[in-house]
């Protein structure tokens, strides 16, 4: 996967994860063009389109579009499953997720994505394991100093 974008029906960007090095200017240009292209698609059209030399896989969940750019050898159908898995993770974490959750807790959306994908590939295929890792990491935020962790570590890891 080269990048993933989340945007609303009005074209407002809610999350952008880039796995290829591009300048800010290039990212803005790509985002603008792609958002326009995807928003122009009609409901009856399929979830895939060719754009520049990439394959774009997109799916709409309520008011949010999840849009991924994959390479030629990547499997479009499994990419739809990747998108779906990410939505499930968000849903489980936020409890019936909606766009507002992602707006107000955008950093959490990123953290969850970064526990699921790394460098554009899935690092964990178990839903449970991703959520557990996020839970543990969230707990760490509560702890004042990480030196406490040396004592707590055993219990944290075996939970």
């Amino acid at each position, binding site marked *: 996967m080269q990048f993933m974008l989340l945007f609303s029906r009005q074209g407002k960007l809610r999350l952008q994860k880039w796995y290829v090095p591009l*300048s800010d200017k290039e990212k803005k240009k790509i985002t603008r063009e792609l958002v326009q292209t995807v928003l122009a698609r009609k409901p009856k059209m399929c979830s895939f*389109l060719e754009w520049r030399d990439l394959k774009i896989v997109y799916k709409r969940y309520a008011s949010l579009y999840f849009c991924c750019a994959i390479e030629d050898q990547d499997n479009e159908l*499994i990419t739809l499953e990747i998108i779906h898995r990410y939505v499930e993770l968000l849903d489980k974490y936020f409890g019936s997720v909606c766009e507002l959750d992602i707006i107000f807790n955008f950093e959490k959306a990123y953290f969850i994505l970064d526990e699921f994908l*790394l460098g554009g590939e899935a690092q*964990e*295929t*178990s839903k449970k394991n991703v959520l557990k890792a996020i839970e543990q990491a969230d707990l760490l935020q509560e702890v004042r*100093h*990480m030196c406490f962790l040396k004592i707590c570590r055993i219990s944290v890891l075996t939970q």
Partner: protein
Amino acid sequence: HLPSLRVQVLIRTIRTARTQAEEREMIQKECAAIRSSFREEDNTYRCRNVAKLLYMHMLGYPAHFGQLECLKLIASQKFTDKRIGYLGAMLLLDERQDVHLLMTNCIKNDLNHSTQYVQGLSLCTLGCMGSSEMCRDLAGEVEKLLKTSNSYLRKKAALCAVHVIRKVPELMEMFLPATKNLLSEKNHGVLHTSVVLLTEMCERSPDMLSHFRKLVPQLVRILKNLIMSGYSPEHDVSGISDPFLQVRILRLLRILGKGDDDSSEAMNDILAQVATNTETSKNVGNAILYETVLTIMDIKSESGLRVLAINILGRFLLNNDKNIRYVALTSLLKTVQTDHNAVQRHRSTIVDCLKDLDVSIKRRAMELSFALVNGNNIRGMMKELLYFLDSCDPDFKADCASGIFLAAEKYAPSKRWHIDTVMRVLTTAGSYVRDDSVPNLIQLITNSVEMHAYTVQRLYKALLDDISQQPLVQVASWCIGEYGDLLVSGQCEEEEPIQVSEDEVLDVLEGLLVSNLSTPVTRAYSLTAIMKLSTRFSSVNRIKKVVSIYGSSIDVELQQRAVEYNALFKKYDHMRPALLERMPIMEKTATNGPTDIAQTNGETDSTILDTKHLPSITQPARRCNYHICFCLAGIPPMTAYNKNGLKIEFTFERSNPSPNIAVITIHATNSTEADMTEFVFQAAVPKTFQLQLLSPSSNVVPALNQGSVTQVIRVLNPQKQQLRMRIKLTYTHKGSPVQDLAEVNNFPPQSWQ
């Protein structure tokens, strides 16, 4: 100082802005506050401020002043700080900026942190955006973590290694030892990322590929377990166990089995098993089937397996889910060359997809349809394709029309069918036809001698209906100009001949000249057509009148033609019949012609319809051309020298674009019985002129006027003085050298005025 807003409060505030200007004002205010907080080195609120900055960055506002702050957060000991710091680094920094290198040391430390979640953050950041330098520096740490027994870290290290290899391919070797036991892991996360790592290594290095072929049995086993094992709640997706892992294994097997008999055989059974047992009711099952099909087609599978794969694709075509239909068509396009017969069996389903509502599906169905056209199905297929042409989006029409022309040319069962098909395309999609189709169609029509009467009649009738489609109008004009005599004499055999008079035909052609719908190119075609009819029709006076009117046309092209045609009437009337006679059959130039079309690689979408493959027509005989050239230039030729059997004629070309340059071509002929060899022509002009002599065509003037030597002279005459020239001729004749000098003073005034 003002208390720092909490992130969520800021977000809420910004969202209340009713205009872009209001939002910008709020953002600027908050950025100013953040900037001063950064300047004061406020540790407490740095994390919160960077988070706010990241939100504003997502809205499109600049946040570069937060880059260094991200680095400070990464260096902090608080986990919250690190989390936001690394996120900020991934969003705000990029490897093209030197500042990112400052992260390297922090990442190195964090890769060795006592808390695995911190190690995770640094692995993730490195694996997402690490530059080549960073990767070089930290590859050793990643390699170490690839060998850890902590599966949480091991899986991340594997993907981080993938990134390192992509950035610095030479480092691939150092990860080889660590891959040894990767596939023995039980943890699915590690398995999945390991397979990704192995795939990357095999794709990059043939040596690695050979090395890892021995893993095929193990991969097959893992896949088998996934399929055969009972329900595993942790990895289940709609009844399928870890589809992500299954797909990646299938992809790795594809790479390992390609071109290798033993490996392909070792995976044959499992592929057949997956192909037959996978549940197809949901997308996830079809995703696995899709990958399986791709693998079967790429490795050395037995024919039964290949047919199975194509049949899966055939079933995909009937699936209600348009996404499935889409991937089926894409895959079939890739395999249509190698497994042509198998794909042919699904032709009717493919043709049905032409009626699909989705544009991408329609396009693929169209390309696949063209790939499947052959001598046996041409009539049926063409019916469908013509119907498609009628109703498809304008975006498709050009490609579809070109495809139809190519297919028709290759497989037309009869000339009549061919002309009819061409007519149908021109009348239904005439404005979308590519410009280069016009000369190709003209050639086709010219060469279908027995169909001339039929063709011109049909084209004439089409013009009566509609003159808006330029390619149609151009072909029709040309045709009427050539075969107008057949039209008025009612010689059509194929259908009921129409009754039309010369005046009616000329009305139509003149109508094209004046119509707003006609492009300049079309007007040129119709004027020439009218001119040609002067030798085929009896109403020459009418034609003369038209031609003379256009002699003062604003359109330079038309004006030039009209002037030349006028000259033809006035001064060269005796040449007119010869010049305007029927075009001979045209030869095709040798190109990668339509014979290559069926062999093109289906993967490249537009190759089939690549206009470079369209044959171009040659010009009719060259001699004809220069005759038209010299007389239409309006400057008559002259004899410059005529002595002892050697005759030298000068012909003049229009001195476009520079009016001060006269371009003269000498033609030397020899009426004696012996060749004149070592022939050299030299010329000198007065000082006010400049002369350039180009290379001669040869230095042998053949005996008995059997040929000529030609040579081009360019004379620059800026002062427009009367042209004079001294020429010197040397040659060998019957063994003796001959030399002569002569003055040439009889240049026609038009050549230098």
